[in-house]
């Protein structure tokens, strides 16, 4: 959080309306989750977390096997798996398919993976219109903003903000009643659904043993997206695999509850291939784009690999006191909050945003609520040491390093340390308030050094005995 970034953080902190929006939204999500996982309602919650963790660990450790199995089973239903290593390859695939089929309009349901690769912007350059159909995402697309939150993308906007966005972009009267706003979006989007040539969804789970793409949602837009247009493309990261359909019993139980406190989302779609003969709806063509985009880099480290267990429930964001203060847009990538803080440096390299793993008080609330038990604080600590190591190799950050080297020397030479500590204690009131002391004093009073240290008290007591 340096330079410009720290300025936008200060803006967020100083914006009372925004602070209230973040606080009340995350509060609501936390309260709902707490109710849904309560001992009386879900007595085996902790057991389920352990199972989910083991299942993800197993899948990620054997990813090559499950990818092949999934691909085979998708093909058996008449679908096709397309492997893409980056955003360019995804765009190339979609563009060439659109060109061949004469497609112009794409409807999309909510997908963080496509946000990650700037899907809409890439296609727009080639005169392909991609329309977001999740209400929150639709609002953000109109406002040209990126998601503020993994699950609740427009969490930071109030209905008054939405009224203004709709008025400006849709040419409607200002409307502040939420139900009426939904109706406005529904009219605009229904037309797009009917005209769309291609439907693009994400995937919450890819089921290897049945070749199914599982999509959970509350608005029904993902189901329309995957069934109304003639072509359906599901874009998913390779880590979304789970071994068996029966494992959904674990993951679906945890996902809705951890995200929004729902036992199950309103819609859970199991998409396995194009329309078969005798079926009345579904697409003619069915593609699953499996995206790497840096994920295989994360596989290399057996400990950090657990970052790929994430099922994108957003619980760590809601419970993170830092996210709740600085919001989503101050994080450098589409993935914000604690999960963003551990995956962003791994995708982009630790020196791109070296402050990120340090922007945490290490309170551990994220790990406590993670449904797949990712040890986020441990990974933050590991990434911190990787940042300092990388800085050392690059020959930067020398002042801080020297300070810690001196500190370590003092801490292993107690006599000198204690003498110096006492001296600095006497002179503390006279010291200029610069560096860390200034930062501390910007928010709080500086504690007065004690007249005698515990060491001194103990020695004096021993002498008097």
């Amino acid at each position: 959080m340096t330079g410009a970034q720290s300025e936008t953080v200060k803006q967020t902190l100083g914006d009372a309306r925004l602070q209230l929006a973040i606080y009340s939204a995350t509060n609501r999500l936390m309260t709902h989750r707490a109710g849904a996982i309560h001992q009386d309602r879900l007595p085996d919650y902790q057991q389920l977390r352990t199972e989910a963790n083991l299942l993800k660990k197993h899948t990620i450790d054997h990813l090559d096997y499950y990818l092949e199995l999934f691909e085979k089973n998708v093909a058996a239903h008449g679908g096709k798996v397309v492997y893409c290593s980056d955003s360019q390859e995804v765009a190339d695939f979609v563009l060439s398919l659109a060109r061949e089929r004469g497609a112009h309009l794409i409807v999309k349901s909510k997908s963080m993976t496509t946000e990650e690769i700037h899907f809409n912007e890439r296609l727009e350059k080639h005169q392909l219109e991609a329309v977001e159909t999740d209400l929150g995402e639709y609002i953000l697309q109109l406002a040209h903003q990126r998601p503020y939150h993994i699950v609740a993308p427009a969490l930071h906007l109030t209905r008054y903000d939405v009224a203004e966005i709709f008025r400006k972009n849709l040419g409607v009267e200002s409307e502040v009643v939420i139900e009426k706003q939904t109706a406005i979006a529904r009219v605009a989007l229904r037309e797009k659904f009917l005209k769309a040539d291609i439907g693009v969804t994400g995937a919450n789970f890819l089921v290897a043993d049945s070749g199914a793409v599982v999509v959970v949602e509350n608005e029904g837009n993902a189901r329309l997206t995957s069934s109304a247009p003639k072509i359906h493309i599901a874009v998913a990261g390779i880590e979304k695999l789970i071994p068996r359909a029966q494992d959904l019993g674990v993951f679906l139980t945890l996902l809705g509850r951890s995200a929004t406190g729902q036992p199950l989302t309103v819609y859970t779609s199991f998409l396995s291939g194009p329309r078969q003969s005798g079926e009345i709806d579904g697409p003619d063509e069915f593609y699953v784009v499996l995206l790497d985009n840096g994920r295989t880099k994360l596989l290399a480290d057996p400990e950090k690999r657990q970052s790929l267990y994430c099922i994108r429930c957003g619980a760590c964001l809601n419970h993170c006191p830092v996210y709740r203060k600085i919001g989503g847009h101050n994080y450098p990538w589409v993935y914000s909050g604690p999960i963003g803080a551990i995956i962003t440096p791994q995708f982009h390299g630790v020196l791109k945003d070296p402050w990120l793993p340090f922007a945490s008080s290490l309170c551990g609330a994220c790990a406590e609520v993670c449904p797949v038990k990712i040890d986020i604080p441990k990974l933050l600590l590991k990434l911190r040491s990787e940042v300092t190591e990388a800085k050392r190799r690059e020959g930067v950050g020398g002042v801080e390093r020297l300070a810690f080297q001196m500190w370590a020397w003092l801490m292993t030479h107690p006599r000198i340390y204690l003498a110096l500590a006492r001296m600095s204690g006497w002179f503390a009131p006279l010291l200029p308030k610069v560096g860390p002391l200034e930062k501390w004093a910007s928010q709080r009073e500086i504690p007065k050094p004690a007249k005698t240290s515990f060491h001194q008290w103990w020695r004096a007591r021993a002498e008097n005995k």
Partner: protein
Amino acid sequence: MKKVSLFVTCIVDQLFPQVGIAMTQVLERLGYAVDFPDAQTCCAQPAFNSGYRAEAAKVARHFLDTFHDSEYIVVPSGSCTAMISHHYADIFEGDQKMLEQARGMGPRVWEFSRFLTEVAGVEDVGARFDGVVTYHDSCHALRELHIKDGPRRLLANVQGLTLREMEAAEECCGFGGTFSVKFPEVSGGMARGKIESILKTEAGTVVSIDSSCLMQLQGVMDRAKLPIRTLHLAEVLAAR
């Protein structure tokens, strides 16, 4: 006589010696022979949390040497205790000899309130403290050591004391070591959120088992000129 060694932590040694003194009094009243290894300095957490593992390893090694012969080490901090019992293993990753030493140390290190309830087996230390108190769960004690009820039971047995829970008891105070100076505005904002919750209880005193959290909360409350004081659990339990 049963023997315990004090590790008072660097922050208590230099800034809050009264916490170490109170801890000594409570332990001696319970019949323990208290010993204070003079070479002790710090648990190494500042360097470890800042990403300087080689530097942290030196300081951790010093701790292991200093407390080599101690059977019970009592610490007035959940955070420093967790550093030693949970994170020394990360520091010495790949160094089999040091790893064994670190693993041997883990079970000998006791956070003060846990030592009282689980080793000494007391929940009423015979203290008296008049006033309304609210308890702040420090994150590392709560989430790494799973300490939640012990300190509350100890407080509930103090004569004259009314324990009033705040809504955000489990929320972080925002200290986070160097986080507090690397991201001062965020850290301060977190503290102010916590303090709102403290104010609602109308308690005059905030009690915790970590002096670092209390330093943060006291600093922000003093800045806001709030008439609320912070006390370490040991200070309340030593009061008569």
